[in-house]
């Protein structure tokens, strides 16, 4: 079994117009940049995307906006993207906002065969509009539905050719759930290791969830907000 493909372009080649895509990452952290860039080269249109953020102008998923590839987006925070703002205001893009925990849980539910569940987040707010409210133990909850996708593009730190993945620090974020919730999951790994090198206790995404893999091109990690302490001199 070898799920590793030669290039990101080959890996995304069958992502067609109108597809629904989950894309991993929190801000610019843990984002599958090579896969996104390959997708922008192929440039399918009318996509529906599910991702916590939408990159920033000219970076990560921001590139997909510039290329006019996205018709609708579901996420929790899109504050770093002026182009998105103007597209939404001009009715060019349909934006659905969900509480971040609801977004995360709905994606997990999609992968776990749970069609719906109840959460207290958003009760009494705009998020509750059109959703069933139900009381359990004297408290109100919203019924939220699972999210699934045709493709998930995820970013991992290490992986083996069987599709087993390990993530690094906060670059984990939405990637593990998305890997479970799409018909075809494509993983971009920084480092390909031999099967058996990853300790079975430490594998975060078992290979069953991953259909295709690519090895990421070396690139420096982009930092969205570089905060630091000055060293004493």
């Amino acid at each position, binding site marked *: 079994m070898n799920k590793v493909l030669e290039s990101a372009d080959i890996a995304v080649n069958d992502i067609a117009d109108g597809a629904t895509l989950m894309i991993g990452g929190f801000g610019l*952290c843990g984002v599958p940049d090579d896969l996104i860039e390959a997708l922008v080269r192929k440039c399918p249109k009318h996509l529906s995307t599910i991702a916590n953020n939408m990159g920033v102008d000219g970076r990560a998923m921001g590139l997909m906006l510039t290329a006019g590839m996205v018709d609708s987006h579901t996420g929790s925070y899109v504050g770093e993207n002026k182009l998105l703002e103007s597209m939404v205001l001009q009715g060019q893009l349909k934006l659905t906002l969900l509480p971040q925990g609801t977004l995360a849980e709905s994606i997990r539910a999609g992968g776990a065969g749970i069609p719906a569940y109840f959460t207290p987040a958003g009760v009494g707010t705009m998020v509750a509009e059109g959703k069933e409210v139900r009381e359990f133990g004297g408290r109100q909850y919203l019924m939220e539905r699972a999210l699934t996708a045709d493709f998930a593009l995820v970013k991992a730190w290490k992986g083996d050719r069987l599709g087993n993945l390990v993530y690094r620090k*906060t670059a984990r974020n939405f990637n*593990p759930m998305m890997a479970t919730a799409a018909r075809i999951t494509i993983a971009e790994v920084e480092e390909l290791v031999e099967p058996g090198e990853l300790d079975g206790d430490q594998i975060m995404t078992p290979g069953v969830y991953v259909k295709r893999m690519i090895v990421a091109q070396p690139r420096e990690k982009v930092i969205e907000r570089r905060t630091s302490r000055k060293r004493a001199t």
Partner: protein
Amino acid sequence: MDVREIIARRAAKEMRDGYYVNLGIGIPTMVSNYVPEDMEVTLQSENGMLGVGPYPWEGDEDGDLINAGKETVTEVQGTSFFSSADSFAMIRGGHIDLSILGAMEVDKDGNLANWMVPGKMVKGMGGAMDLVASAKHLIVAMEHTTRDGQPKILNHCSLPLTGLRVVNTIITELAVIRVTPEGLRLEELMPGVTAEHVQSLTQPRLIFPPGFGAKLQ
């Protein structure tokens, strides 16, 4: 002292040894600077980290190690990482002792608005709705009034809500106010501030505990 620093310093006093705490962006993030050194408080960041350390030394920034405000941070001894689903399971499940957030408006029922202004661009609620719905104790740390001096503590929030009946405590540069079933109770005044002054900048009638000696009608 800077107004924001006054608020953050006072909010830090709400910490207890052994607390697990989530801090929002802005003034709430500053609170961690004022936790007493002999107190062990563990910070959670909803992007998937328990045990958030200070900003890294210049040059040590790691793009894979950020907080929910997307700022580079560091680990402490015992830091753990997890997925966003596991992070919000921790939050939704009520395992975080204290959550401190900023606000645009709070009202006398403890309703909170801090995520959108109609007509302006909707940036999204991020994790705020999950945090306010499930915190064991929710503190709003904010300036007492808007930039043009209008009350932010209102009878009824005018902006779209982030959460319904969720706020426990409001800490501003003027006062500490508790949300109670009877209404907002003025619990503490910052040095040099009078109860009358606080009331004049607060829309709902405040409850004054005995001894505050305020005479308002």
